[in-house]
C-alpha cells in the first residue's frame, strides 16, 4: 500500500547498509562526524576534555528535547518549557535559601516542574479544540510571571549555601554527572518511542489523532503523560542549571523551548506529527552542541553563530522537501 509520502511500504521493512546511511539519521551521523572533524581543524583546543567541560551548559537543554520530541510527534507543541525551568529553578532556590534539607530542595524543584507540565497537559486535554501553541503561550507567560513575582524586586536569587548543588555539578573523570543522566534519558526515551506501545501510540496520534482514538488509543492519557514528563524533566534541567549558576533570575531558561524544538526539527522530527525518530534528534542535538563549542572556541561572533545555526535549521527542513518534490516530479513523468 502507498504510504503518506507516496512510497510503497512493504510489511517487513527492508534493511540494508545503503538504506541506513541514506536515512536522515544516517546523514546526520555523517554530518556529526564531519562537524567534529571540521571543529578539530579550525580550533586547536577542540578536544575531548574541553568539549565535555563546555557541554553541561548545553546538556541542560537536551533534557527537554526528549519529551519535546514526543509532543512534536503527536503534532502538538509546548513553548512554555523555558518558563517552567525558570519557575522550578526559582522555587528550588527559594526553598534552599529557607534552610530546608537538600533532598526537599530537589523534590521541590521536580514537583514544581511536574505540576507545571500537568497544568499544560490538563489544559491541552480539556480544550482539545484549542491549539497547544496558544495554550502553552499562555502558560509560558503565566509561569514566568509567577517566577518574577517570587524573585521579587531584584529579579534574582542566589543560593546562600550551594554545597548540595556543587555536588550534583561533580564529575567522574572528565564526564560530568549530567552527561550520564542525559545519556540514560536518551536511551530510555528512544526505546519507548521505537519499541513500546506508548511510542507506537505517539506516531498513531501524530498521523491522525481521530483514527487513533477510534482504534482504541487513549489519546488524552498519552498526551497528558507527555506534558507531565516534559514538566518533570524541565524540573531536572532547572536543578542542573542551578548547579551551574548557583541561583535563578528572570532570564533563567529563556529560549530553551525554541532550542529544544530546533534540535528536534533538525533531527528530522516533523512538527506536523507522526514523522521522525528520536535517534535523529539525539544526534542532531549533539551535532549542534559540538558546532557551537567549536565555533565558540575560535571566538566567532556569537551572533554569527546564531545565524549559522538558523541557516542550518532551514536547510535541514528544506532538504527532505526538495528531495520529495523531485521524487514526485519523477513519478508524474
Amino acid at each position, binding site marked *: 500500500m502507498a504510504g503518506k509520502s507516496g512510497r510503497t511500504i512493504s510489511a517487513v521493512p527492508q534493511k540494508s547498509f*545503503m538504506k541506513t*546511511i*541514506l536515512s536522515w539519521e544516517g*546523514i546526520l551521523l*555523517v*554530518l556529526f562526524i*564531519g*562537524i567534529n*572533524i*571540521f571543529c578539530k*581543524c*579550525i*580550533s*586547536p*583546543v*577542540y578536544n575531548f576534555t*574541553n568539549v565535555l*567541560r*563546555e557541554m553541561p*551548559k548545553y546538556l541542560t537543554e537536551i533534557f527537554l528535547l526528549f519529551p519535546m520530541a514526543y509532543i512534536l510527534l503527536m503534532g502538538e507543541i509546548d513553548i512554555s518549557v523555558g518558563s517552567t525551568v525558570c519557575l522550578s529553578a526559582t522555587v528550588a532556590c527559594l526553598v534552599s535559601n529557607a534552610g530546608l534539607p537538600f533532598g526537599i530542595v530537589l523534590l521541590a524543584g521536580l514537583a514544581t516542574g511536574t505540576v507545571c507540565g500537568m497544568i499544560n497537559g490538563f489544559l491541552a486535554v480539556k480544550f482539545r479544540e484549542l491549539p497547544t501553541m496558544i495554550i502553552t503561550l499562555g502558560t509560558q507567560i503565566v509561569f514566568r510571571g509567577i517566577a518574577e513575582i517570587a524573585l521579587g*524586586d*531584584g*529579579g*534574582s536569587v*542566589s543560593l546562600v549555601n550551594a554545597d548540595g548543588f556543587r555536588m550534583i*555539578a561533580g564529575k567522574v573523570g572528565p564526564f560530568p554527572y549530567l552527561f550520564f543522566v542525559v545519556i540514560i534519558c536518551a536511551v530510555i526515551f528512544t526505546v519507548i518511542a521505537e519499541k513500546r506501545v506508548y511510542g507506537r501510540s505517539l506516531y498513531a496520534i501524530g498521523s491522525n489523532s481521530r483514527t487513533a482514538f477510534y482504534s482504541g488509543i487513549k489519546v488524552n492519557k498519552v498526551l497528558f503523560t507527555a506534558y507531565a514528563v516534559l514538566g518533570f524533566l524541565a524540573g531536572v534541567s532547572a536543578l542542573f542549571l542551578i*548547579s*551551574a*549558576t*548557583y*541561583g535563578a*533570575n*528572570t*532570564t*533563567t531558561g*529563556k*529560549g530553551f523551548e525554541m532550542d529544544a524544538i530546533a534540535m528536534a526539527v533538525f533531527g528530522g522530527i516533523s512538527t506536523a506529527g507522526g514523522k521522525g525518530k528520536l535517534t535523529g534528534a539525539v544526534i542532531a542535538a549533539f551535532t549542534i552542541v559540538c558546532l*557551537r*563549542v567549536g565555533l*565558540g*572556541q575560535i*571566538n566567532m*561572533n*556569537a*551572533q554569527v*553563530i*546564531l545565524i549559522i545555526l538558523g541557516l542550518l535549521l532551514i536547510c535541514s527542513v528544506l*532538504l527532505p522537501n526538495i*528531495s520529495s518534490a*523531485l*521524487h514526485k516530479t*519523477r513519478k508524474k513523468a
Partner: protein
Amino acid sequence: MKKKILCTILSAVMAASLLAGCGNSKEEQTTASAVEETAAEDQEEAPEADAAGGEEAEPETDAAGGGTYALVTKSAGNPFNEKEAEGFQKAVEAIGGTAIIQHPESATADAQITVIQSLISQNVDSICIAANDENALQAALEEAAAAGIKVCSVDSTVNVASRLVHVNQAGVTEIGQCLVDAVYDITGGEGQWAVLSATSQAANQNAWIESMKEIIESDSKYAGLELVEVAYGDDEPQKSTDVTQALLQNYPDLKVICAPTTVGIAAAAKVLQDQNSSVKLTGLGLPSEMAEYIGDDDAHSCPYMFLWNPIDLGRLGAYTSAALVNGDITGAAGEKFTAGDMGEYEIVTAGDGGTEIILGAPFAFTPENIEEWKVVY
C-alpha cells in the same frame, strides 16, 4: 533510484564542503596557533623578566606584555560596551598582547557562562568581564580561576568570590550623589521623579539606585523629592521607550526622569523631546547619542547628564588584567600599579567586601561642552 543518487550526491557535497573548509583553514590555523604558542612561551617568561626589571618595566620595549587578554561584554550593540572594548583593545595592543573581545549572544548570565567556558578551553591569560548577573557567574569564574586564569570585572561587578579585583568607573556614592544633586537641581528642590534603569539584576544599576535612595533619606535637604517608581527598560531601546511612555501616563505630575543607563537615557530623551513633554531628563548617557537632546531651553529634554570615559575604563581594565597576569598585583587592597600612560592606581576596599580600582569621578556633560565631546565617543 534517482532519490538515492540525489541523496548520495547531497551528502557527498556536504562532506566535501566540510573537508574543503577544513583544509583551507588548517594552514591559517597552524600559523595562528604557532603565533599563540610563541606568545604563550613569552608569557611564561614574563614574570621573571618583570621581576628583574622591577615594577616600572617599559611594556612596549619587551615581550613581557605578550599573552591573551579576554574581555566579555554585557551584550552586542551596546555603545558603551563597544567603546569599552575599543579602549581595552588599544591598551592590549600597546602592551603587545592579543585581545579577545567577546559579546555574548544575549544580555544574560547564561550566555556569558558559555563564553567563559569557551575562553577556559582556549587557556587565555585573563578574563575581564562586565557581568549581567552578580552571582550567577560564580561557578564558571571559579573554574576559570582554578585553571590559572586571572579574573577581574569591569563596569558591572561579579561577587567577591568570583573575582580578584573590580575595575569601577566611579565610586557608587559619588555617582549617587551626582545624580541626586542633578535631580534636586532640575526639579527645583521638590516634586516627583522616577528612575529608568536597565535590567532588574544589573548590579551596578541597583547599587546606584540604592545609594540615591540612601542619600535622599539621610539628608532633610532632599525631603521634597518623591521617588515614584523604579522602572526597568532592560537596556532595550523599544522596551525603554514603552516604559518611559508608561511613566509619563501614570504620573502626570512627574518632573524628572533619571536614567543611569546609556540605552535608557537615549530612548527616554527621544520620547520626551518628540512629545514636547515638560518632564526633564538626567542620568548617565553617551555624549554622541545625547548631543541633540542636551540643552537648557524647553526644546531640549536633557539639561545635563554624566558619564565617565568608557574608553579609559576599557583601557584600565586591560592594564589591570596585565598587571594581574604579570604578578604586579594580586588584587589585595593597598597595592599600587602603573596603568600604562594612565598613571598610577591604587587598589581599595569595595563596598561589598572585595577590592576595587576606581577610575575617577563622573564627568558632567553640559550644553557648553557637549559639542566638543560628541565627536569623541
